[in-house]
């Protein structure tokens, strides 16, 4: 007879669980890591956070092992004298390289490391500090710039911008929101006076309809998407508008597939119908807005029929969309890169804001504006002032009284001129105006548009200090590389897309001699004569709160394990889930009309297709972290360009076959994936894979207001790979120790 043989695992009982957060996207899921006494993480378990209710996605669930990857930087590195003049060090990063066709291609340490030597922290910090100081003293403070991280904590972001402003003396500080929602934030501050979301993601359960504009939440905010789908299953009508079919299309009541760049025409037509059929909320417009007349006039020519010609969406569908939206009691607006990453991204966002104001859909549950924030702390980084035109809390650098207040708080005089944004910094470097760059937790070589230009810009610098976990493509150009702490090695606050401020807690120590990012900043500041003295992260946070009234009433004690939303009206409140029920920060909301614009790099006979770039579920940004996660790398080791079946057939391309993808700026070789998710004449390429780097192809033009690049449209040509293909040697990334 069988016996019950209890097999409780003795070694298992040695694991401890730490309540912390996921390091990846802006949903900011709360989770527990189960780790052993050596700091090795064995599993992740969902925790009941305000934003995720215990749910996780593949990255949060399985992508935690990058922190323990053997390629972690453990000692400071200094560029060898014979590695000058600086330039790309790996085959991949060089111009006109044939480009590796091998999968799993992250930076090859064997190629790059020999050009650096290990150094003590003393020497490295001295080198970094003196290098930056020399540029300042020779060319002026405005020849310096800093790229801070949207993945670091609020404390790190706060200290970084403080460093750039007070120690280096310039406002040239920015982070990757510039590449993401800069246009959305501009339009929001212009339109309602606040750049953050008005309603949290889960409020979608209260919405009768929800517009899902230019975003693909199942890939980029999976847990948020699960709440949207759940709402749809319970009756919320999801109305999706996207060039490419979103993963949740089967849950959508409507999906309008617009042609690339035609968003303004679409939304103007929707507003046209809403006004023509008297579905707008006149009372709300009268009480809470200004500029309606100008808007109504601007959308008059955008009839559904006219919009059909501009967008490719049948007039009847546009009308149905407008009616559904106009007749709904409550509507929520979600959007993403499909709206923001254009030279007219600000205009696109202006349309969505206008639509919400027009229909009275702000300030109540189940309504509101929600640009889905990408990174785990991009909201916090912006809030902490990691941007050239605002101090912490969106207080304008150009406002003298504000500047005075900060000069008092920080006990230093501050530069008057607002700084340059990310892409402007790259352009300025090419012009020789920016000569020194301090880069913390960013990889502009891969993340910025027009890689060939970025290569030149980085090569032209006098001083580049890179602080990161691994050697990135950007670090190949550095004078000094400082080994820093991963998310699960630090304590700090992080603000997610919902405006939820939560504390992340360390589970392990940084490896070798790698240090906490904020300690490195403090030490650099001290070396440059600034007496920075903070007891711990909590003290930094308290100073940040003092600087930014937006975060009033928040302390580490009050945040505890559950976090709170900001704004937080008093010590006992959990924070405000829904904003602007009475009035906007600027009083009345502003209608800002938009006209249909044109992308700068349009198709012609030589480059007949339109390329869309973006993200996929398994990977994160430039792949520095996720491609070093065993699970994520196994799930998605290679890039694929998505091609419509008819285009594929015409071009002689089959599923999985190798192709050359060329734009006016560069070319990549990549395998094809045939799918109907992309429209005829358009392609999609993910941005994560350096061996098929999307930004070799993209154009550098910027939105004039948000300064965000045109990632979503460029003209390309696609052809089967002409030269015979030798079987690719899988250059598998070793995940084993040593």
């Amino acid at each position, binding site marked *: *007879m*069988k*016996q*019950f*043989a*209890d*097999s*409780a*695992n003795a070694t*298992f*009982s040695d*694991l401890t669980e730490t309540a912390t957060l996921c390091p990846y996207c802006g949903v900011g899921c709360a989770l527990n890591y*189960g780790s*052993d006494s*050596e*700091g*090795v*993480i*064995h*599993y992740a*378990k*969902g925790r009941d956070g305000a934003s995720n*209710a*215990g*749910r*996780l*996605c*593949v990255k949060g*669930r*399985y992508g*935690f*092992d990058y922190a*323990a*990857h*053997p*390629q*972690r930087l*453990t000692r400071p590195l200094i560029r060898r004298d014979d590695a000058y003049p600086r330039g790309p060090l790996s085959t991949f990063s060089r111009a006109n390289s044939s480009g590796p066709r091998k999968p799993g291609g992250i930076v090859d340490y064997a190629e790059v490391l020999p050009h650096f030597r290990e150094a003590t922290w003393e020497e490295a910090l001295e080198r970094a500090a003196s290098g930056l100081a020399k540029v300042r003293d020779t060319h002026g403070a405005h020849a310096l710039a800093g790229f801070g991280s949207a993945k670091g904590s609020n404390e790190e972001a706060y200290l970084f911008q403080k460093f750039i402003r007070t120690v280096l003396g310039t406002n040239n500080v920015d982070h990757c929101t510039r590449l993401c929602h800069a246009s959305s934030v501009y339009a929001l501050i212009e339109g309602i006076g606040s750049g953050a979301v008005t309603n949290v993601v889960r409020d979608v359960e209260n919405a009768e309809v929800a517009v899902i504009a230019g975003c693909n939440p*199942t890939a980029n905010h*999976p847990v948020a*998407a*699960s709440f949207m*789908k*759940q709402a749809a*299953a319970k009756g919320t009508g999801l109305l999706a508008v996207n060039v490419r079919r979103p993963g949740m299309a089967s*849950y959508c009541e409507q999906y309008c597939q617009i042609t690339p760049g035609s968003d303004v025409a679409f939304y103007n037509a929707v507003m046209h119908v809403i006004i023509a059929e008297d579905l707008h909320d006149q009372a709300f417009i009268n009480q809470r807005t200004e500029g309606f007349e100008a808007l109504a006039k601007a959308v008059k020519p955008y009839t559904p029929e006219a919009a059909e010609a501009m967008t490719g969406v049948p007039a009847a569908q546009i009308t149905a969309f407008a009616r559904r939206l106009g007749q709904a009691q409550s509507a929520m607006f979600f959007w993403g890169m499909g709206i923001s990453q254009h030279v007219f991204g600000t205009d696109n966002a202006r349309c969505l804001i206008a639509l919400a104001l027009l229909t009275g859909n702000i300030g109540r549950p189940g309504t509101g504006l929600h640009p889905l924030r990408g990174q785990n702390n991009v909201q916090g980084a912006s809030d902490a002032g990691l941007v050239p035109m605002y101090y912490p809390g969106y207080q304008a650098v150009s406002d003298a009284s504000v500047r005075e207040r900060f000069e008092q708080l920080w006990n230093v005089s501050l530069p008057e001129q607002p700084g340059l944004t990310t892409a402007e910094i790259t352009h300025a470097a090419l012009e020789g105006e920016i000569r020194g760059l301090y880069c913390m937790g960013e990889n502009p070589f891969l993340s910025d548009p027009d890689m060939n230009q970025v290569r030149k810009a980085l090569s032209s610098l006098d001083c580049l200090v890179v602080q990161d976990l691994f050697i990135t493509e950007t670090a190949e150009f550095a004078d000094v590389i400082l080994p820093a702490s991963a998310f699960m090695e630090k304590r700090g606050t992080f603000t997610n897309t919902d405006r939820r401020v939560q504390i992340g807690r360390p589970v392990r120590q940084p*490896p*070798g001699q790698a240090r906490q990012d904020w300690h490195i900043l403090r030490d650099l500041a001290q070396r440059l004569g600034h007496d920075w003295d903070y007891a711990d992260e909590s003290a930094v946070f308290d100073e940040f709160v003092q600087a930014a009234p937006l975060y009033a009433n928040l302390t580490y004690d009050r945040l505890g394990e559950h976090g709170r939303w900001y704004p937080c009206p008093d010590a006992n409140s959990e924070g405000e889930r829904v904003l602007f029920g009475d009035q906007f920060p600027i009083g009345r909301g502003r209608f800002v009309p938009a006209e249909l614009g044109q992308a700068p790099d349009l198709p012609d006979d030589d480059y007949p297709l339109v390329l869309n770039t973006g993200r996929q*579920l*398994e990977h994160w940004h430039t792949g520095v972290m996720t491609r070093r996660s*065993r*699970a994520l790398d*196994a*799930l998605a080791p290679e890039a694929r360009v998505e091609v419509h079946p008819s285009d594929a057939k015409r071009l002689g391309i089959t599923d999985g076959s190798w192709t050359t993808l060329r734009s006016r700026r560069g070319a990549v070789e990549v395998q094809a994936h045939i799918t109907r998710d992309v429209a005829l004449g358009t392609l999609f390429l993910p941005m994560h894979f350096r061996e098929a780097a999307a930004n070799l192809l993209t154009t550098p033009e910027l939105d004039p207001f948000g300064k965000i690049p045109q990632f979503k449209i460029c003209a390309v040509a696609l052809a089967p790979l002409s030269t015979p293909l030798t079987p690719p040697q899988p250059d598998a990334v070793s*995940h*084993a*120790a*040593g």
Partner: protein
Amino acid sequence: MSDVTLTIDGRRVTVPEGTTIWDAAQTLGIDIPVLCHDPRLDPVGVCRVCAVDVGERTLPAACVRAVSPDMEVRTDTQEILAHRRVLTELLLADQPAVSQREQTTGDDKLYALAREVKVTDIPWPDQSERQPRGQDASSPVIAVDHQACIMCDRCVRACDDIQHNDVITRTGKGYSARIAFDLDVPMGESSCVSCGECVAVCPTGALTHQSLATTDAG
């Protein structure tokens, strides 16, 4: 919506109409054992471990049954304890020798139940050799062992009703029923997006995380 007053194990309680017996018991601090039920999921009442005596011909599952006025519930009679033990034994009879769940996350709920009802001998035949249920190692992150599956339907509900990824179903019928992905393809070839929710809710070693622990470079 009116309130309902009933008695559970001799103690009176008043709860809103529509409350399940299990939830009502919770308010009294009575934790009726469950396997297929989890408060995050809609109850399905298939494991029958939470069966209680309400004086009817059969014992309803507390997790699905709504309270009714003046209902008298007993959760702990000798008969109920006997059935709970038989149900636990039936499930243990076919389990693999070692619980993969205990090994990876230490929270095998069937084992916890076995300890609670103090199972020692398992007098029911082990079907695992006559009708082995198979394993699926096709996913890089999730290990599937159908032999350990107790068909509690948690993974189905987690995948379909929580994450809405719509991958998992029960397939087949009767004793040979198991879970399947899409049109019954290996998990690694299905539309599964590896969110791991199924692993998180699985009470046994049927769905577990593939080991991902790596050691430091130092």
